[in-house]
């Protein structure tokens, strides 16, 4: 960590420190709405980072990451509701459960040579049949959803994620910053090098003695486990879980937009992407609401247009362009 700080260029250090200071102090000045949008940005920066680790660094395309969000959220919510075990402990079970799903998908895909788009299809299939399973699972309330009750006496139990907007704001900030730090460290680790080698050319990587199977398994297990933490956050922030909402493929897509727009395989890509996309989406919702337009698909269309524009203008993402502008270096593809 200290080493990372040391190698960061002075300008980079100033920007990071300044951004963190502003975000830490912002609740003093900003209103609830701004805080809620920022909380959402942190959430997408976090899960985007988890996905980025697998796709951006290890080159394995998952279009079913909503699965890990959902499994993580459901496991922690169930433990809280049925067993009275708080999310500070439940998160470990959530991570383990999602990582087990990730390991199963990874094993199937990598052992049997299902690669590229076919692997992506496999991840979609798992997310979809899990959604259908949860639709019919009585324990979790089936399609009618699972609700975390509001209890007056528990307010302030921050370790149980019972609290107001500020709790989730700071938790989100910590998660997003922690994930960026973790990915930065992993990218420089032995595993990170091996991921990038496999991403670039798996055959060549194997020819050099890299155990491509093990390396890819590590990526999917770490990524799915990380994503599950986002799921716990989601469950306790919104206090409700519906299979049709959390496991939807549109959720998986939504979650990968920030790293793609921001820049795949870079540490700050998912963060920048979330800061660009989320306010745009929220702003659009606010505008259509103001004019009394009720068009449920408008956000998806809007994201589509934004994606086309950004990707055609900056194929490797917003961040690599910005980084070049400021003379910084990140692991751009």
């Amino acid at each position, binding site marked *: 960590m200290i080493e990372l700080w040391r190698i960061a260029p002075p300008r980079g250090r100033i920007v990071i420190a300044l951004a963190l200071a502003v975000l830490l102090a912002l609740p003093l000045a900003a209103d609830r709405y701004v805080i809620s949008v920022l909380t959402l940005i942190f959430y997408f920066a976090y899960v985007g980072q988890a996905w980025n680790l697998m796709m951006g660094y290890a080159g394995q395309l998952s279009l079913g990451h909503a699965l890990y969000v959902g499994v993580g959220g459901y496991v922690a919510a169930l433990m809280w509701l049925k067993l009275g075990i708080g999310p500070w402990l439940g998160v470990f079970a959530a991570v383990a459960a999602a990582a087990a799903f990730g390991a199963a998908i990874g094993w199937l895909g990598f052992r049997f040579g299902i690669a590229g788009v076919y692997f992506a299809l496999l991840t979609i299939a798992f997310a979809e049949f899990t959604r259908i399973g949860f639709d019919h699972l009585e324990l979790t309330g089936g399609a009618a959803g699972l609700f975390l009750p509001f209890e007056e006496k528990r307010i302030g139990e921050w370790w149980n994620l019972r609290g107001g907007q500020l709790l989730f704001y700071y938790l989100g900030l910590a998660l997003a910053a922690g994930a960026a730090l973790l990915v930065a460290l992993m990218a420089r680790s032995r595993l990170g090098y091996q991921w990038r080698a496999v991403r670039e050319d798996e055959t060549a*990587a194997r020819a050099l003695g890299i155990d491509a199977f093990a390396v890819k398994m590590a990526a999917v297990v770490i990524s799915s486990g990380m994503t599950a933490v986002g799921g716990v956050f989601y469950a306790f922030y919104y206090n409700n879980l519906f299979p049709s909402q959390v496991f939807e493929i549109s959720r998986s897509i939504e979650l990968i937009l920030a790293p793609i727009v921001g820049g795949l395989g870079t540490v700050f890509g998912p963060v920048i992407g979330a800061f660009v996309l989320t306010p745009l989406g929220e702003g659009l919702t606010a505008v259509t609401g103001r004019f009394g337009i009720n068009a449920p698909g408008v956000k998806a269309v809007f994201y589509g247009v934004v994606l086309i524009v950004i990707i055609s203008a900056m194929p490797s993402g917003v961040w690599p362009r910005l980084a070049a502008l400021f003379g910084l270096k990140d692991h751009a593809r």
Partner: protein
Amino acid sequence: MLSVCDIDVFYGDAQALDRVSIDVEEGKIVAIVGANGAGKTSLIRTIAGMQRPARGHITFRGADITGWPSCRVCNAGIGQVAEGRQVFPTLTVRENLEVAALLPRARGKLAHSLARVFAMFPILAERGRQPAGTLSGGEQQMLAIGRCLMGRPDLVMFDEPSLGLAPALVQEVLKTIRELNRDGLTCVLVEQNVAVSLRLADRAYVLENGRITLSGAGAELLADDRVRQAYLGM
């Protein structure tokens, strides 16, 4: 040192290798020559553990390595410089080299290996911070060779190292292989460029349609009428 005994390799129903046997003695250069599609690359991939033989076995330094995964074969000391160079384009030259030194047998020797490779190919030191994809074809071939050496192999299989290189660079690459061999590296050289590889090799095998049809000392095959007619156009 390395002995391939009676191996068959299939891709689906298509047979790529048919009862192929070769012997590689320590410290020698062994050439495998043959036309496109004769099975040369299949043979290398099978030895490297990237393709399972349907029958037969492979031994290296007395150990049966048949069916070992490629990471284990590499760590036993068999390296390869794959066809078409296959550098990691967005990784820097230095990162390309470092990633190959992650092999357990090479891990502790990174600094020494790096110094050796840079001494051999000074251009790589110069271009160390550049993405490997920006190198010229010849430089990429040097990187591919240097990268393989970072894994501290005792035996290296070179798959078409001269492919797509200008004649002057071909000579350079072959000279490098000869020097490496002089320093004790055992080499298996797979080439379409029959004349040069036979001149370089201590021993050579001719592979035709998945079978070994001829073998002998390099100079001997160079003088063989069948080789001269089929591969040298004489």
